């Protein structure tokens, strides 16, 4: 019998990739395409959902070709995606009503301030686990409804559909306007601000608070379950999982037990801890979210520390400043000097996420003197990711009262050894990278493979986890604390920059 494989589609913020895995969780083929980022105004970030769909249409056959296998050898497809990014499209034509509003987009800042001023806003977090912020889907969807002529009427008539990228891809893969499935999974739904975290259904009070017509929302399903069969791109493949990228990474790192934690370094970076069946309400600026849900089982909850800008700061350094030609060269440039020269960059491009949640913060470079070279700036870029990690790890520690003993990492930036070493230095714990850096895709593959019985159980998946690299802390405590203090002062300088200024509590 021919060898069988699981396919993952990782629809990420900057690119979409299709990866095939074998039963030992080894990568067999990777096909990838980047899509354009549109920045029509300061703070606005948009993507073309049709371009993303076309990319999927190219990379899936390409991955099969590269692996020299047929679609019949693919036992299941798992879809994972950038979260919160909102797209609305016509159910009869499949054409989006406009570009998708990306999670980093902060156009809804005023709307969020208005909503936060309403008395009912105090109960929001209790229901959805999230603070009111531009980051999540509901304000973006509301903005589209308010600012696209005629859209609210079409939504109420049931002519248009809303989705995150998982929903958009599944609808298209299963037929689009001719019978496409309009579904999402519980992890993606948990990022909209519209789902009740306890009941895991669309919450009437939240819908009414954001004024969103229920008819346009997809059906919420478990993360790992047979959703349907593809009829386009590569027909006949079973779609057996969908989950948000960070949730997929948690799954791919086999963080199946309560207390297990991972941090994924991509466009942004996200620390997630499995909290099992316990819904933990954070006192320290973390989000309560769904870790994952296997079909027929209750959900597993998670706590999340979200950092908006990490890899995207390196991209900005490359594309907007032009100081490097490729992202990995940031390490080469940073190694031309031995420290940051007193310079700090706080990349509050989309405000600051966890643990601060200051939408009005804006980025800064501080500590400039004529001594500073581009090498120091490159150091400051990498250190910004490390210190932001420290902040969310500290919040996690404060939440639990127990310090972490190591950090499991994954994602593209783990190829940057200077960054990984710096993270170990600022956290003062070892940093561990597993053998599959593409943990997001692996998690989607695991969920899909479990749903169809390709892998029997979670314990079997755990045995696939192997350590690929380990970085041990090297800084002394005094330097670490002095640097952390400088970082904290730099962060405080970013607060309150964008008008209207918000009263600080």
């Amino acid at each position, binding site marked *: 019998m021919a060898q069988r494989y699981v396919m993952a589609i990782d629809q990420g913020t900057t690119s979409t990739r299709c990866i095939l895995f074998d039963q030992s969780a080894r990568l067999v083929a990777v096909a990838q395409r980047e899509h354009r980022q549109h920045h029509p105004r300061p703070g606005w970030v948009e993507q073309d959902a049709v371009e993303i769909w076309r990319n999927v249409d190219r990379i899936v056959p390409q991955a099969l070709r590269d692996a020299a296998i047929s679609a019949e050898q693919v036992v299941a497809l798992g879809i994972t995606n950038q979260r919160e990014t909102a797209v609305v499209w016509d159910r009869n034509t499949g054409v989006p009503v406009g570009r998708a509003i990306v999670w980093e987009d902060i156009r809804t800042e005023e709307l969020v301030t208005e909503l936060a001023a309403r008395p009912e806003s105090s109960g929001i977090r209790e229901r959805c686990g999230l603070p009111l912020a531009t980051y999540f889907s509901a304000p973006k969807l509301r903005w589209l409804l308010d600012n696209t002529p005629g859209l609210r009427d079409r939504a109420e008539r049931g002519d248009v559909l809303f989705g995150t990228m998982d929903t958009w891809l599944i609808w298209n893969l299963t037929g689009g306007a001719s019978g496409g499935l309009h579904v999402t999974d519980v992890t993606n739904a948990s990022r909209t601000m519209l789902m009740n975290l306890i009941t895991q259904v669309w919450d009437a009070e939240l819908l009414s608070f954001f004024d969103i017509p229920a008819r346009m929302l997809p059906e919420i399903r478990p993360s790992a379950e047979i959703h349907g069969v593809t009829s386009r791109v590569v027909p006949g493949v079973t779609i057996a999982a969908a989950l948000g990228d960070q949730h997929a990474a948690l799954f791919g790192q086999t963080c199946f037990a309560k207390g297990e934690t991972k941090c994924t370094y991509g466009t942004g970076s996200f620390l997630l801890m499995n909290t099992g069946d316990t819904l933990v309400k954070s006192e320290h600026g973390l989000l309560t979210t769904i870790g994952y849900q296997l079909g027929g089982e209750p959900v597993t909850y998670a706590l999340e520390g979200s950092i908006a800008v990490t890899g995207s700061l390196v991209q900005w350094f490359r594309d907007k400043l032009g100081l490097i030609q490729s992202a990995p060269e940031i390490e080469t440039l940073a190694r031309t000097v031995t420290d940051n020269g007193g310079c700090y960059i706080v990349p509050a491009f989309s405000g600051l996420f966890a643990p601060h949640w200051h939408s009005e913060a804006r980025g800064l470079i501080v500590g400039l003197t004529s001594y500073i070279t581009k090498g120091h700036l490159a150091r400051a870029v990498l250190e910004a990711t490390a210190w932001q990690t420290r902040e969310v790890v500290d919040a996690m520690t404060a939440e639990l009262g127990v310090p972490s003993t190591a950090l499991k990492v994954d994602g593209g930036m783990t190829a940057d050894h200077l960054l990984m070493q710096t993270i170990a230095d600022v956290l003062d714990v070892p940093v561990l990278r597993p053998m599959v*850096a593409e943990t997001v895709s692996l998690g989607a593959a695991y969920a899909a493979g479990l749903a169809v019985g390709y892998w029997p159980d979670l314990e079997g998946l755990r045995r696939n986890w192997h350590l690929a690299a380990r970085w041990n802390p090297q800084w002394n405590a005094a330097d670490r604390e002095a640097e952390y203090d400088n970082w904290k002062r730099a962060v405080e300088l970013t607060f309150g920059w964008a008008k209207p200024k918000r009263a600080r509590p």
Partner: protein
Amino acid sequence: MLRLLARGSGQYGLAEIAASLGLAKGTAHGILRTLQRVEFVEQDQESGRYRLGAALLHLGSSYLDANELRSRSINWADTLAARSGQEVRIGVHHDGAVLVVHHVFRPDDTMQTLGVGAMLPLHATAFGKVLLAYDTNLARDRELTSLTRRTIVSPQALERVLGQVRADGWASEAEECMPGEAGIAAPIRAPGGLVVGAIGVSGAVERICDSASRPKPALVGQVRSAAEAVSRALSD
């Protein structure tokens, strides 16, 4: 080809260029003539050797950054470690030695130390032999230091081995650098064929070699296909 000419002494004969890039002589000659026409390459009147031309000075310099190489190869280095069950490293030439730019632990979850940044001898490692085999300008006049009783110390013997490496497309080493240790490596090629590094497995000699002290054919196949996958990833 231009990158090859930009290396070392910067003067290469046709045969060396063809051998280094894995091209037929006729093909290499055709390309050189084209490059000569646009003044990217000049030919020395007396020696007949080729060097970079003046027109190139205005193009600025570009090279494959070691960190970029690691970033592009990480998936395939991981896959090689998972398939082979051995530790995987990627080496590039730096200052007369092999600089380790990437390292993946052996997937048995034993305590291991990250070896990125280490310098290894060119003549006594599989990585080094690959780099030497495809760059005729590298360290030919260097003394071949004896590290174990199996280290190749005769230049003639090393040349024979390097010729075999070019013929086979991979290199190996058994107890030539460290007693009890062995390794297998294959070339990573940038678009155009230039060898920019080597990827390979290493470990205890009984893990890498069969009972006849020859590299296990299955490992050789895995190393070679990983090298090809990384080379493909560099051309994407």
